[in-house]
């Protein structure tokens, strides 16, 4: 199957006004410009498995359908002053594919499932009283990215649009606050 190289200029201006007005040429340009973004987001939503080409195509088609459905209702909501179209398209494509995968997930007949599999384990939640202001939102996010997502500092700095040293500093300050809260005696 032939592939479209992403030779389309990344700074290609899309005339959104003409596009949502039904201009075929603007739509075609939009498709060429953002098909790679949509395809990449769709592929990522499928996870680490090896989805079939047909599944990838169907999911990608669902994204384009969502964008032009109801007279481009979704695209009309986009505000180019607030974000880049490519970033927004990536979010829409990923979330649409996640929803699409969830809808097509086969559901088992409850009568065919062994009773043991339906048993619900008692949830044991640790009752912690952590003040809401203990960590700043950014501190909590940095810790999550480091320890849950196992991202390295350069990756996090890029995601947060900050210097790497800022990430290290945020990480360190967050740990100090947690230690003071959980080990007040220094134990």
């Amino acid at each position, binding site marked *: *199957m*032939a*592939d*479209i*190289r992403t030779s389309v200029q990344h700074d290609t201006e899309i005339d959104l006004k003409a596009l949502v007005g*039904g*201009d*075929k040429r603007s*739509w075609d340009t939009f*498709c060429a410009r953002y*098909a*790679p*973004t*949509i*395809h*990449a*987001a769709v*592929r*990522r*939503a499928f996870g680490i498995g090896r989805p079939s*080409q047909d599944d*990838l*195509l169907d999911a*990608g088609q669902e994204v*384009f*359908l969502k964008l032009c459905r109801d007279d481009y209702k979704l695209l009309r*909501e*986009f505000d180019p002053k*607030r*974000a*880049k179209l490519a*970033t*927004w*398209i*990536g*979010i829409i*494509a*990923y*979330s649409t594919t*996640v929803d699409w995968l969830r809808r097509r997930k086969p559901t088992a007949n409850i009568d065919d499932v062994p009773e043991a599999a339906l048993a619900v384990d008692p949830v044991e939640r*640790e009752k*912690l009283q*952590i003040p*809401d202001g*203990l*960590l700043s*939102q*950014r501190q*909590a*996010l940095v*810790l*999550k990215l480091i*320890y849950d997502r196992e991202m390295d500092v350069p990756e996090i700095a890029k*995601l947060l*649009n900050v210097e790497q040293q800022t990430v290290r500093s945020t990480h*360190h300050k967050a740990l100090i606050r*947690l*230690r003071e809260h*959980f080990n007040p005696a*220094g134990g």
Partner: protein
Amino acid sequence: MTDEFNPAEARRLWRLAAAHKPAAMRPVSALELAAWLDGKADAALAARVEQALAADDTLLETALAARAASESEEAAPERLLVRARAMVAPAVVASKRGGLMGQLGAWRRGLEWAAVGACFLIVATGGFWMGGSLSDNVAEAAQPATYSLLGIDEEPADLFEGI
């Protein structure tokens, strides 16, 4: 107490903190998340988005996927582009094209009805006019013969005036 942390202690502290779920938050829209990813969020929005990202794994994965996808150089299958382009039909666009023909196209139905109406009016008026003229001509042609049968040249009203 030193300010240094070994990885095990740091991870344990995060586990303790991560067990705490913050109170319900206002959902973050796609545009707000995009603004944050592009570094265009103000301080209040950034704090709200970062709080949501720390609490919501799905939202965090969405953000990471969008960032990666927007920078991707991966090729898209040609069939995807073909399908996408086919979603907007040229026929729909035809009526919206510019120029004189495009504008005439938008008024075409109205013009058609106006032309039909005008033709009907012309035919009806012409017919009425022709019908009226013929009647007058017949009357004019018949009148002298009637009077001559009576042996007079004057109109009948004058003839019976004295009776």
